């Protein structure tokens, strides 16, 4: 049994409406537990509060009510600056637009930005930057200017910038949404490697079903509330519920559901990857063949 890394208790947040004193609730009493080393995807349509929820986890936004525990310590309430910095060091975040999160004019200086802020001595900075760039495979670009890189490369630099702070957990806030398919693959395989090889807890906020299918666990957030929590197999078996909140299942799973609707008897409890879907269809096909032979 692995230890809990992030735990929220009844966490809520509301945005100030622009005109009146009215408040718009974005996250409503969310209680979630994420264990160390887990790969969690958070699904939700636009405006569901999933990004807001993520920003609460490293206190970029301050919750209105509820409690946040990270690494066993309560992080809500009065925090000293050192505690806040420690929280942000251990829970890093990569955003959607790669252009808006790179600070420095050279790749390696940008990667050094986080550790520089934390005040590490220069030799330490050097090793951290070199290691982080090597982990994301961008070492040869260390003297480049960020605007000369592709979207996927920029996003990998942004990941390196977070990695250089040696975080325990990285939150990806729709980090692949603005990338082309090859850039998306670059980032996704980096995320996978960080989770498997470095043991970093991953929280990937996305609205791509295929991306969510890669996670160990999916949280579906709708209207600021937790709608579903389970493995990809469990979540994708509830297609109608997902459709009702503006989400869909991966295309291969959709195919299985359509076949089922057409009257073919198919299992729908394990549809998180195209392989599993193909397996389900193949099983049904052979079952029917056998049945056919039995009759004849």
């Amino acid at each position: 049994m692995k230890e809990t890394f992030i735990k929220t208790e009844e966490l809520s947040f509301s945005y100030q409406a622009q005109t009146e004193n009215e408040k718009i609730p974005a996250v409503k009493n969310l209680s979630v537990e994420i264990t160390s080393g887990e790969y969690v995807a958070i699904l939700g349509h636009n405006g569901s509060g999933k990004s807001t929820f993520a920003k609460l986890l490293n206190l970029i936004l301050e919750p209105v009510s509820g409690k946040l525990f990270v690494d066993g310590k309560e992080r809500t309430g009065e925090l000293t600056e050192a505690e806040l910095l420690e929280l942000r060091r251990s829970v890093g975040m990569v955003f959607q637009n790669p252009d808006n999160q790179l600070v420095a004019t050279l790749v390696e200086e940008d990667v050094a930005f986080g550790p520089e802020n934390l005040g590490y001595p220069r030799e330490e900075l050097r090793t951290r930057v070199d290691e982080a760039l090597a982990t994301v495979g961008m070492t040869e670009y260390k003297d480049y200017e960020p605007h000369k890189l592709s979207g996927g490369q920029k996003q990998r630099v942004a990941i390196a910038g977070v990695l250089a702070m040696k975080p325990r957990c990285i939150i990806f806030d729709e980090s692949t949404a603005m990338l082309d398919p090859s850039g998306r693959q670059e980032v996704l395989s980096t995320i996978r490697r960080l989770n498997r090889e470095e043991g970093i807890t991953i929280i990937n906020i996305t609205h791509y079903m295929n991306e969510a299918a890669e996670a160990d666990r999916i949280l579906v957030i709708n209207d600021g509330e937790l709608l579903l929590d389970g493995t990809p197999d469990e979540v994708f078996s509830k297609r109608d519920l997902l459709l009702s909140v503006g989400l869909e299942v991966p295309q291969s799973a959709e195919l299985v559901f359509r076949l089922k609707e057409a009257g073919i008897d198919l299992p729908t409890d394990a549809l998180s990857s195209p392989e599993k879907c193909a397996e389900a269809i193949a099983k049904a096909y052979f079952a029917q063949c056998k049945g056919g032979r039995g009759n004849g």
Partner: protein
Amino acid sequence: MRGMTLGQYYPGTSPIHRLDPRAKIILGILAIVCSFLCKTLFSFCLLEALVLLLVILSGIPPKLLIRALRPVLFILLFTSLVNIFMTRGKNLLFEYGIFHIYEEGLWNALFMILRITSLILMTSIFLTYTTTPIALTDGLEQLLSPLKKLHIPVHDFAMMITIAMRFIPTLAEETERIMNAQRARGVNFSTGGLIKRVRSLIPILIPLFVSAFNRAFDLANAMECRCYHGGEGRTRLKVLRYNVWDFVAILLLIGVGVGLVFANRLTFGGSIL
């Protein structure tokens, strides 16, 4: 736009490229002082020799350097005309109606041209051509860091300049994209009078500002996530270090300045020469 590099930096490894940016800022200031010290043709000759030496040392193609002079061409022309026609001296060379041209006026014009051109050439060799903008900002920050004691936010200013430089190419790309989008809707940017052209900029500026603000919010979040909390307790990956040559260069240029003062006193036959 994608291939655009910032400033006029000319990559290289010349002795001037290798000087510390702080030293180069000081050298740039000394170069300005030197060009104002010159008063006689002889000292100007020395100054031009220095400029020539710097051009050769820096290894920057003269073509590029001439480009640096282009923006001041008008000022050069204007000041020399003013000098030629307005200077009153003893030696009248030419007279036509209200126009009087004296020998002193011609000399003044020549000196002014030499002074401005060598000033610009030397500062651009020391600063813009051989130093990257980011190194220049770093140099300026560290050179001015004693002012932190007077509660002047030196780090914050340097950070702002760095971020501004980081976003110039991004915003340039964005501007082009917006212009293309507006062109596709039939906006014409290249014809019409001044007022019409300025007006056609409005549909570019508004989306550009909106997106710049959004970028600023995003960047602020990203910086907070990466533990930014001002300049206090911040270390740097790259720290500037003076070496012997920086001091040698500064001393040499001070020497040149002193030499120029003495050169001004040398008179050949009592004339301005």
